[in-house]
């Protein structure tokens, strides 16, 4: 097999960047900086998985917080029963994947905007479930089933930081693998015209389900890692719409249906978090306005805009010329 030199160069660049980021905590970078890098990779994983569904399958999923919450709560249940953290993370991902299969027969009957609203119901319903249900521990007086995550004492912050980098990179790799495979072509065909895809022999249900399950799996892991960092999960935060908002913003600002879009979008979102750290409400209003402006003026996001400009195209030609 011949190694594509262009691909190889890209791989080296990514590997160097990741290695530098990974050793930062050892070098003693301020903790707030590490926090933003941590958030970047968690949001990146979430945005990539949302982009996979909405940008490449045409499934505008608003139920991603369901996977985050399920991941976090499974982690709680596992650790409270004395099981190791890693088993909890994996368990959460599997629970989210199984849950996806259960709801898929209902939500896949819906198309376009109906699918969006159908999926919107799911995290709201789960939020109520976890508000009422106390899976582990004593029945406390009053409502609001918030939990501490146990067994975090032996895990250092650096460790959790590395986990975040890992899941962020995994999400990029998964996007690359899925899109360059036969499955990616099938998904694109479904998005563009599902009846034509179906009559060309593509099993629509199976492909959509596969993408949905992958998305749930990775989203749940990213969610668990985030709650490992927080150390505490409550139904209002775990199943919150704010998660959906973050991934939509990151993807749409960067450029939906592009592989680089979520990366650029996440950088901007995390930067906004950094700038407006003290004014959370105002930050969200600005993000909402940003989303509206992008949709009105540049629906393909920054990447879509960049692709049209001459500089980007000549840059592309340059790197392509290099690799030949």
């Amino acid at each position, binding site marked *: 097999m011949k190694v594509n030199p262009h691909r190889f160069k890209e791989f080296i660049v990514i590997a160097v960047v990741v290695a530098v980021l990974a050793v930062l905590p050892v070098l003693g970078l301020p903790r707030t900086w590490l926090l933003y890098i941590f958030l970047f990779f968690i949001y990146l994983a979430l945005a990539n998985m949302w982009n996979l569904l*909405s940008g490449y399958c045409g499934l*505008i999923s608003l139920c991603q917080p369901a996977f985050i919450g399920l991941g976090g709560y499974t982690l709680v249940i596992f650790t409270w029963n004395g099981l190791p953290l890693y088993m909890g993370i994996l368990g959460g991902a599997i629970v989210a994947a199984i849950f996806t299969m259960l*709801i898929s*027969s*209902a*939500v896949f*009957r*819906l198309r*376009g*905007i*109906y699918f*969006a*609203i*159908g999926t*919107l*119901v*799911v995290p*709201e*319903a789960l939020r*109520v*479930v976890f*508000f*009422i249900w106390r899976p582990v521990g004593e029945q406390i007086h009053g*409502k609001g089933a918030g939990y501490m995550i146990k067994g975090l004492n032996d895990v250092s912050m650096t460790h959790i930081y590395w986990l975040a980098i890992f899941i962020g990179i995994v999400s990029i790799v998964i996007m690359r693998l899925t899109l360059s495979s036969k499955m990616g072509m099938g998904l694109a065909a479904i998005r563009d015209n599902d009846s034509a895809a179906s009559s060309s022999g593509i099993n629509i249900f199976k492909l959509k389900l596969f993408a949905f399950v992958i998305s749930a799996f990775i989203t749940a892991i990213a969610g668990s890692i985030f709650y490992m960092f927080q150390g505490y999960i409550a139904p209002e935060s775990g199943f919150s*719409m704010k998660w959906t*908002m973050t991934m*939509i913003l990151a993807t*749409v600002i960067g450029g939906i249906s592009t592989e680089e879009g979520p990366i650029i979008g996440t950088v901007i979102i995390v930067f906004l978090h950094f700038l407006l750290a003290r004014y959370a*409400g*105002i930050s*969200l*209003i600005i*993000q*909402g*306005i*940003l*989303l*509206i402006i992008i*949709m*009105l003026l540049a*629906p393909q996001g920054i990447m879509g805009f960049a692709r049209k400009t001459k500089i980007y195209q000549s840059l592309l030609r340059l790197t392509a010329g290099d690799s030949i």
Partner: protein
Amino acid sequence: MNEIFSDIATPVISGILLGGLYTVIALGLSLVFGVMKLINVAHGDLVIFGSYFAYSIMTYLGFNPVLSLVAGIPLLFAVGFAIQKYFMARVFKRSMEAPLLIAFGISLVFENLYQILFTPMSRGLTTSYSLESFILGDIYIPVVYLLNLIVALIVMIALSLFLKKTFIGQAIIASSQDIRAAQLMGINTARIFCLTFGISAAISAVAGVFLGLTFPFTPVSGIPFLIIAFGVVILGGLGSIIGTFVGGIILGLAQTLGAQYISASAQMLILYVIVLVILAVRPQGLFGR
């Protein structure tokens, strides 16, 4: 025997009356959905806009929340008109997703504006009659619940008369049936869409006031009521005012009966599960074809 009867009669009657409120909340969504084939994700937040507007008028000026509608209805009409004219209309033809994402952004902006202006605390529209109830045999029914049903009937009759008897109403129906044919008949559909969105928001103003009289609300109450409205619309099928009314009553009954016989804290969950089951089994609605 009598006790069992009153046991079941209370949730049934309050469920039907509550259904009135859900009908009013859903009518605005149904109108936009039916005419523009667009689900306005910010609909719940527009309803809560109505609630907060009435709340501010009541707290700062001391007017009765129902009276505040004199200003609330035109204000929300203008907001709805502007949303369609300056945002939705521009991306309307591009794709299904674009208006959805814009509505999502509007919802986020509204929600956080409420958080900043009114704090995340739970508010309610408390009036002299909000704690009173009337007695029907052995059953106590809160007055505001009865108001909900009366208002629902008024809004439904007014809306159907408007759609049937006025030129604009007929133009709205024509544009919902066939945009191109309507345009060929000389109807300015872009303007009709703005008016439709405005009317939908104006109905939300009414819904918001009676929602505030019935339930406490917070800045994030928009999503639960959006889901309820959506459930009512799919239950009742598209474009039918009576269908919406039936859907509203079914969800109202499901909530009060669920609260009585299953658990009060699970009442919203029951509504969500019903919405999901209907989507899975009959996405076209009970009365859809």
